[in-house]
């Protein structure tokens, strides 16, 4: 303390905290101005309505399907089994023990509620989130495979492989993803499903055309990264591997690709984050992912402000987790 350096640091510290303060002032200012402009609009915030779109309790009623009388109520673990004896036979119903509405010997008419209980159900936002996650994960896996293969084909000396790879990459990168989704669903989808129908095989659901569009789109970008990654590895590495008697495939697998993949991990992370966000386009081909799910709730609940914020937040959770995961992988690899 008291040394010039410590003094300087203190001074810097004051400046630092001032600007930290400015940052929070801006954030709070934006939130407040949003809130007050919404009040001008007479918008009523109903945040309490949001959780039901994640999980909700459903009222379940068990009704008798015959006339008769309750013959027996027997415990079976946490459940009870109610046996109703009618003129034409006996029916039995299972229900949680707490939900009972009748006693043994009571007379039952058709349609009487034997028991009621509540059951947790997954809400539509949760389903949308899950679908977005599922589509993204499958598309990322296929995107990596396509990208790896195409990237290798791109640097091959075989013109068939090389030119196919270039054509594919340029076509994908040169057209909008939205158009590609339409082509997959309305053109290729129609063709595939027609052929399948002609052979009496079941139809492919739209989900898979969506996955194909996303994976094909991502694959082209991953291919270019893979190519750049491989080309960034010094030629001496290949020479050393080959001079030890490794085949091209072995030198790629054990020497070149591990180094190249480590280098392209950061841009790959960015690409996969884009993919998660781009999956919001799949709503247009009737895949009820997060964005479409939100839009559906908005039209029925009329709570657009809360719902769109929640929707954005959920995407943020997905992308942020992914970027954390990839950062962790990167750190772990650098540590070795």
């Amino acid at each position, binding site marked *: 303390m008291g040394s010039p350096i410590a003094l300087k640091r203190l001074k810097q510290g004051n400046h630092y905290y001032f600007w930290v303060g400015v940052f929070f002032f801006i954030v709070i200012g934006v939130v407040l101005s949003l809130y007050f402009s919404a009040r001008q609009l007479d918008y009523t915030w109903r945040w309490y309505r949001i959780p039901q779109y994640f999980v909700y309790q459903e009222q379940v009623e068990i009704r008798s399907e015959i006339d008769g009388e309750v013959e027996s109520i027997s415990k079976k673990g946490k459940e009870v089994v109610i046996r109703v004896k009618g003129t034409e036979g006996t029916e039995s119903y299972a229900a949680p023990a707490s939900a009972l509405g009748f006693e043994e010997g009571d007379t039952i008419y058709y349609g009487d509620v034997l028991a009621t209980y509540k059951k947790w159900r997954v809400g539509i936002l949760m389903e949308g989130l899950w679908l977005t996650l599922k589509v993204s994960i499958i598309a990322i896996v296929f995107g990596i495979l396509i990208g790896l293969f195409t990237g290798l084909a791109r640097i091959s000396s075989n013109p068939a492989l090389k030119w196919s790879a270039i054509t594919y990459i340029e076509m994908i990168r040169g057209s909008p993803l939205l158009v590609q989704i339409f082509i997959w669903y309305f053109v290729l989808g129609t063709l595939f499903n027609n052929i399948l129908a002609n052979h009496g095989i079941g139809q492919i659901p739209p989900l898979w055309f969506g996955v194909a569009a996303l994976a094909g789109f991502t694959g082209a970008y991953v291919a270019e990264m893979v190519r750049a990654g491989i080309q960034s590895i*010094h030629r*001496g*590495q290949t*020479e*050393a*591997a*080959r*001079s*030890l*008697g*490794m*085949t091209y495939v*072995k030198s790629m697998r*054990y*020497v070149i690709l*591990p*180094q190249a993949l*480590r280098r392209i991990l950061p841009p790959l992370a960015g690409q996969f984050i884009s993919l998660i966000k781009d999956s919001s386009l799949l709503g247009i081909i009737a895949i009820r992912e997060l964005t479409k799910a939100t839009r559906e709730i908005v039209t029925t609940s009329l709570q657009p402000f809360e719902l769109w914020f929640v929707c954005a937040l959920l995407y943020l959770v997905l992308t942020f987790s992914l970027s954390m995961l990839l950062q962790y992988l990167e750190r772990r690899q650098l540590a*070795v």
Partner: protein
Amino acid sequence: MIDAKNISKTFFSHSTEVKALVNVTARIDPGEVVVVLGPSGSGKSTFIRCLNYLNVADEGSIIIDGIDILDPKTDINKVRAEVGMVFQSFNLFPHKTVLENVTLAPIVVRKKPKDEAIKKGMALLDKVGIQEKANVYPDQLSGGQQQRVAIARALAMEPKVMLFDEPTSALDPEMVGEVLDVMKNLAREGMTMVVVSHEMGFAREVADRVIFMDEGAIVEVGTPEHFFINPTHERTKLFLSQIL
């Protein structure tokens, strides 16, 4: 062991062509240590790289251990497994530990059991004096240590010939000695070696024969005594006067 006859190699860059090798003929017998000398750009490195097909000779024939490596039917990977190569810039695999560098090829090419490869690898690291660094990564080693690991990596394949492409040129002067010592020991054990080098002391002490190249051709071949004391060609005399 190695029989190269009339090999030629031309590189094309843009519109100019560079004749790297012109009608080079050389024979290396089992157990022999041959040092290839010459000014830079004389084709020494191209010559040694042609011997394990890292460069492909345009013409001529190269027979290694009875196998014609320029024959399209030859499985070059099998030949390379028998020919160890040490590079100027080491080219260790940076994502693998020292020990993994040494055991990788025996495991994936020779299909050796892992424990056996590790045992052999540790013995080789001991031989090049670097066993205590077995589990560190190459970037934590000095240049001399890296090059010794590179030698151990090549030896792990139990090659019949070792090719050294300027193994000490990228090293700080104080590390040259440790690498040359390893190579001298190897020569003493009877390993067949072809060494491209600027280390005259090494050539004089260890070589059975010296090949002097200039402008892609072999100018003079002889024992070190002949070469250093009594060279025949003017070009050789000029070269020696420039470097000694």
